[in-house]
């Protein structure tokens, strides 16, 4: 009885292998077209990653008993400087809908004013964070973490980045 069903499971296994090959092929395809991919996509991803790292460095310090402002102050400045680069990192049509390996939604270019405002909000929040860091008061920085995280990062992600849910 068991032997009867074996060929069908070899077929299933082959289908699985084919699927794996297909997804591998798709990845290769993306690499092939890497030459046509605007450099800004990778630049903005690296930039966001660095912003995230600096933001986490600040929050990590705030979790300690004695937050180190030698870490917090330059990290806050780094976030502010990197957020100001964003307007140049979203060339027209570099959306996930256009087939690029990105989480940037086409909404960015359909609503350029809203996107510009979202960036400005982030830049402003990060400037407030720098000001808080300059006071040397961990609680002031902590308040700005929530402000920057929710009104800067999250507010923009919810509108202009691929849905999380």
């Amino acid at each position, binding site marked *: *009885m*068991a*032997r*009867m*069903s*074996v060929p069908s*499971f*070899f077929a299933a*296994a082959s289908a*699985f292998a084919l*699927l*794996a090959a297909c*997804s591998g092929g798709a990845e290769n395809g993306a690499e092939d077209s890497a030459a046509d991919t605007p450099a800004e996509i990778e630049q903005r991803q690296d930039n966001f990653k660095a912003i*995230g790292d600096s*933001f*986490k460095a600040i*929050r*990590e310090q705030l*979790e300690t008993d004695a937050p180190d402002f030698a870490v917090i102050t330059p990290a806050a400045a780094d976030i502010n400087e990197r957020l100001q680069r964003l307007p140049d990192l979203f060339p027209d049509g570099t959306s996930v809908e256009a087939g690029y390996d990105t*989480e940037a939604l086409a909404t960015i270019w359909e609503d350029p004013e809203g996107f510009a405002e979202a960036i400005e909000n982030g830049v402003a929040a990060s400037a407030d964070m720098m000001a808080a860091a300059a006071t040397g008061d961990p609680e002031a920085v902590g308040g700005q973490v929530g402000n*920057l*995280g*929710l009104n800067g*990062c*999250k507010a923009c*992600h919810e509108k202009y*980045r*691929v*849905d*999380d*849910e």
Partner: protein
Amino acid sequence: MTSDQVEPSLVQEPIAKTHSVRIWDWPVRLTHWSFALLLPAMWVTADSSQWGWHMRLGHVLLALIIFRILWGLIGTDTARFSSFVKGPGALLKYLRGGYPHKQHKGHTPLGALAVLALLGLTLAQVSMGLFAGDPFDGATGPLNSLVGVGTADFLTDTHEWFYWVVFGMVGLHITAVGLYGAFQAQNLIGPMVGGTGEKALSVADNSPAPWSRALGALAVSAGLAFWVYLGVPRPI
């Protein structure tokens, strides 16, 4: 297939008599093939940033791993860890060859290691995912807030490459099944599908799988996974 019609004098070699025995119970087979579907699904949903589905399926996977571990304690003979996890002595003996596969049903000493590695690595990967993410940056696992930012970041980064280890082990497992089929003419897939395989007459059926026990274990594991999904709230 039977040699009943063959004159005994014409038989060149003694034909080892076999019969069909039950090897794998239905919970083992169901969890096995669920893993085979869910692991690629976890990869695909992560690759396409479908975090909602990635996390929902991750909790289904968590429930199934917990179920398989429970079933390894209270399940049928071939499902129990105590029946197939052997010491290094048995493993070395197995690796030297001559293991009478027809005389045994269930995992070999080497196959037992594969079971532990597959379950353990997948559980580790799922567990890291529960803590992964950043509350200001998209989806987070339900236990993210229980650890510090640095720990969550480390677990997130590790979760993002550790799937290679999991799929490496899956690849090794599939390769081994293929090699046993090719070089030892052992059909390992059939029994994992249908539950039965050809074994020597001395080999008895696996013990029956009691529905009540299986459903009880399933309820406990689904409940645990759902509790984790809710962020392990205190009962009160």
